[in-house]
């Protein structure tokens, strides 16, 4: 621990030094991500159980998902993870302008993801491939095909909300960076948001094969 007499503006009074504060934030963020994994875990259970009970219906229903749109979105999210990581790196090097570019790029890619998702959803809604009672599509063999679309809309929907949350937070980071709130000494919020964004990306990397690829 360094013995400095100066008291940086971003150091909260109950921490003894900047290192302790940053380490606390990191641990807190990892625990939060753990709770996110468990939240999605319930839905993955839902998927796994009903898939094992209705393998044929799941196979028939999954053919109605557009693999190309899903694949594009996968690439979009992975690239956005890269730009997010580069934003952190730029701030570590003190390049404020570059950080802003990378943050803006991340937000842009996240929006592209949501737009593609919008087209996918509206097509499904149009056809009536909807969850539960709202389902009115005919043409998928097997019992209770609405359950497949319940799982699909719930899991991608919850994921979509997380993407929207990410867009909001990264936009906020962009503004803070523009105002000069961050420096190579203090960029914890960008780093924490990066962790969150990678998890959102990672969850999609599981969702894509489970829904679009395996049949």
């Amino acid at each position: 621990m360094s013995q400095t007499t100066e008291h940086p503006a971003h150091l909260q009074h109950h921490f003894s030094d900047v290192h302790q504060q940053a380490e606390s934030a990191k641990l807190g963020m990892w625990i939060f991500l753990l709770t996110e994994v468990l939240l999605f875990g319930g839905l993955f259970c839902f998927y796994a159980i009903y898939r094992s009970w209705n393998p044929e219906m799941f196979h028939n229903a999954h053919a109605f998902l557009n693999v190309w749109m899903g694949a594009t979105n996968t690439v979009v999210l992975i690239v956005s993870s890269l730009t997010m990581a580069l934003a952190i790196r730029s701030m570590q090097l003190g390049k404020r302008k570059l950080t802003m570019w990378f943050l803006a790029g991340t937000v842009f890619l996240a929006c592209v993801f949501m737009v593609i998702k919008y087209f996918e959803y509206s097509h499904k809604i149009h056809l009536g491939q909807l969850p539960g009672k709202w389902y009115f599509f005919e043409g998928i063999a097997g019992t209770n095909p609405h359950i497949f679309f319940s799982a699909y809309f719930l899991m991608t929907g919850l994921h979509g909300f997380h993407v929207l949350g990410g867009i909001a937070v990264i936009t906020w980071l962009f503004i803070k960076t523009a105002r000069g709130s961050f420096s190579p000494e203090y960029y914890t919020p960008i780093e924490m948001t990066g962790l969150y964004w990678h998890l959102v990306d990672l969850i999609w990397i599981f969702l894509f094969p489970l829904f679009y690829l395996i049949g």
Partner: protein
Amino acid sequence: MEHTIPEKHYLNEATGWKSWLMTLDHKRIGILYMIMVMFSFFLAGVFALLIRWELLSPDKIFMGPEMYNQAFSLHGIIMIFLFIIPSIPAILGNFVMPLMIGAKDVAFPRLNLASWYIYVIGFCFAVYALFAGGIDTGWTFYTPYSSESTTAVIPILTAAFVLGFSSIFTGLNFIVTIHRLRAPGMTWFQLPLFVWAIYATALIQVLATPVLGITLALLMLERVVGIGIFDPAMGGDPVLFQHFFWFYSHPAVYIMILPGMGIISELIATFSHRRIFGYKFIAFSSLGIAFTGFLVWGHHMFVSGQSDLAAVIFSFLTFFVGIPSGIKILNWIATMYKGSISLDSPMLWALSFLILFSIGGFTGIVLGTLSIDVHLHDTYFVVSHFHYVMVGGTVMAIFGGLHYWWPKIWGRMYNETLARIAVVMIFVGFNVTFFVQFIMGTQGMPRRYATYLPQFQGMHGFSSIGALIMGVGFLLIAIYLIHAIFRGKPAGPNPWKSLTMEWETPSPPTAGNFEGQPVLEHGPYDYDKVIPENSLKPYKTL
């Protein structure tokens, strides 16, 4: 020696309602929680008394079956989600834990305040549900009934869902605080056992609560959209709901009891004036309970149609939970052995805990036995068992803790004579209420019925009298504790002559807890090395 209240302390350093509602001080947030949680306890207690009143007679007194269903559901939901889960961590954990580890605050003070506001939002949803048709599903919300019931299921599920976030935030905050903000010199094995217990609790809060969140969200969607996960009419499986629900709600039982066990460790050591026996065993048994607690949820479902093999395994694993709990009980008793025990009121609560929790624990083993459970399932035996654990365990512990730390929180002492009368009333009243329920259960009295066979009237009446004794006892406690806040005699910094760090601060503590960063000078239970006094000693700082 006459004590005085220090001039400046956390209660008067800022004034006005805004200084309370916007506070980031963990001690004030603890008190904000205390107000809400104790009000919930009162509310749920009123429902309990209404239930016991109706059960005085097998015929209708004032509640028909529908209203009775609502009364026991609300009693359970409010007691569990609004009182017992947040109770010890959010009130005493918030207030005491940072002081115990020599920290100025929790790691994320704003998150801490946010968790209280989220709790209040959850509370509002619950109250709204009460007026928007009530709830009659029981606190377990079993499908398919909960997807069909015409009562306000969605508002109450929203309440529980929202309260879950409050619980997660508290747990997350505490884990980080205990990892990162311990005073220099305070290693993990110098932590007071209350902190260990809070830590184990926080782990469960963080790991189990998200699963409850998604379960309740799925149940809401089942009601609104019919997504087909739990409702057989839509191709769903109601037993799956029970799995999801108990995956959270069984570990939640340990969210309720573990912090209570932490309090008991402090009380037994302090009032026996003796080094705690088997420190590491008690510490690790908390983690053991937290871990094993995740593997036993199926023992709630022995008659729900899970496979026989699963039932046998769950029954076997259930016995394992008994081991760490037994380790704790034996270590506490060993601590008292040849100790110099003072029977102040907090210690009386601790002794009540030992007796009642042991009964609750042993009957838990009885119920965990597969073949016996099939006979006793959904009878008053179960009701009595979990009340012995929840009330005989957690409620005894929290009141022990409140009596123990009351002079620290407010700087003033309550009337000890009244306190001793109250603890005896609660102990007697509790046993009168619930012991007969074991007997009724073995004779086949099923739970959750508004009416019963006339042969049970004697025992039901006896039980109701006990509930009344408890009600009067709690009223008495409320009166003398609130009186102490304003009129109690100044208690001094360390009235019980304890060695944990919170007693090195003035009572009430200053807003920043400590002057400078304190350094640990002796272990929390070094009664063989240090003689504590009820006075302020300057501590070493960094």
